[in-house]
């Protein structure tokens, strides 16, 4: 089944709730829940369309970042932390020859992002002694660049679904 697409079905559900169900509702609690449902349906429609590419991009960005962090930690003599990154990159690898589901891609991104979080926690502990070191500062900057990228990318799933679309609750 190619048509109707999942997005078309979700949009039809949203329109039916807004045009048919909502006018018949008098209970405030039900109207409030319905308002929230409308926003979340638009969010789901965006995820159906775009989440696969966003996750693929995120995984790529995380792999690049972790490779840089690995190299910094390795050069700085933090072998344990560098090895943990290598292990995370290995565990997050998607199975070759198998079409990845969104769940599999999300799991992969989670492993990689956890590794970034762990590396950041470690680097924060080291700030007092390495705070002026250029390589350290570059590693921290690369993490900040990724964090900004991640928020910007995620915005594509949020703003079109919620902004100027009425009460959330």
């Amino acid at each position, binding site marked *: 089944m190619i048509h109707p697409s999942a997005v078309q079905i979700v949009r039809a559900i949203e329109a039916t709730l807004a045009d048919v169900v909502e006018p018949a509702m008098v209970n405030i609690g039900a*109207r409030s829940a319905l308002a929230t449902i409308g926003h979340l349906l638009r969010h789901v429609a965006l995820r159906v369309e775009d989440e696969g590419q966003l996750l693929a991009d995120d995984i790529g960005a995380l792999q690049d970042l972790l490779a840089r962090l690995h190299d910094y930690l390795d050069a700085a003599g933090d072998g344990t932390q560098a090895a943990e990154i290598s292990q995370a990159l290995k565990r997050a690898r998607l199975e070759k020859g198998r079409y990845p589901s969104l769940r599999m891609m999300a799991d992969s991104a989670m492993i990689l992002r956890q590794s970034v979080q762990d590396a950041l926690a470690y680097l924060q502990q080291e700030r007092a002694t390495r705070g002026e070191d250029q390589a350290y500062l570059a590693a921290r900057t690369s993490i900040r660049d990724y964090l900004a990228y991640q928020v910007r990318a995620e915005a594509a799933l949020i703003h079109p679904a*919620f902004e100027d679309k009425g*009460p959330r*609750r």
Partner: protein
Amino acid sequence: MRFTPEELTPILSHHLGGAATVLSVESVARGSSRETRFVRYRLDDGRDRNLVLRSDFPAGSTDPNPLDLEYFIYDRLNAADIPTARALFWEDNPTRTDRPFYAREKIEGDWNIPHYSDPDPAYDALRIAIAKEHISTLARVHAVDWRALGLHERLAVPGDEADAARSALRHARDQFLTLATEPIPLVLEAIEWLSDRAPPADRLCLCKGTNGYGEEVFREGRIAALSDWEEVSIGDPAADFAFMQGFLVDIVRDGRALWGLQPALDYYESLTGLRLSREKVQYYQLLRSLRLLVMSHNSAASLRRTDAHIRQGWTATEVLHLTQHVLASAMGMMPPIAPERFAQLNISVDMG
């Protein structure tokens, strides 16, 4: 537990010292962190009474602070000279309920204030009077002897005034790392950034946390009860100006500023002698964004269950994203979001 009259009748009879009959149970639509219900009941003296029940959502609360902390605060504040509802009972006996809840008395009044949102300048005086009423009541909260009430038994206490903000940051970090739903490295970056800029408190006091239009019970223009104590803390009084929904909106007529953050801080100083800076309030707005991020993250954990409330789906998506954006922009990583974008979050269907 579905909180039906049939389920609640024996529980109220047990706790209220007499045969109770629950007449009606009404759910309140607005809340995003927990469930609130208004219960009308009759005791064997034939008089009808009302109370409020608070429980977590079936899939858990949005707020990582436990429900029994909220009850504890109400219970201890009964002895303080501030308008709050009296705590009635805590119920977590598994033979009576599978979802713990507590009851407090229902204070007559309404969160809604007629004409408060009417842009007609004729209502400027009303808006300013309501905001001043709220600030003067908060000043009384800040004067509470929290040690004498034993609030330090459950609330994190900063080491000293200089530690006030960092204490809140440690609490947020601990809660975030405990949740372990999804790694969000931005949280660690933001905590470090905020810690570097932590201002000392003017003094350590009881802070209510969530304030403003929609958070309190008003009657005839006065605060009948301060509600929503779920984000209570011991810290800097400036923190209470960080989330004061609708009560700090600029009112400018003919080029003259009649109300807004600075006039509100000036009014607070006239009551307390404490001069709180705008910059410090802005700092605590960021700290509150961090806390809201942690709460939204907690909502995402609830979505793992099939009985999650739809509201938790919203906080786990839009609110979680916006709090990250706020912190990222504060750290100079990206442009800020327009304030109007945030105002939308507080609009509910019953505010028409």
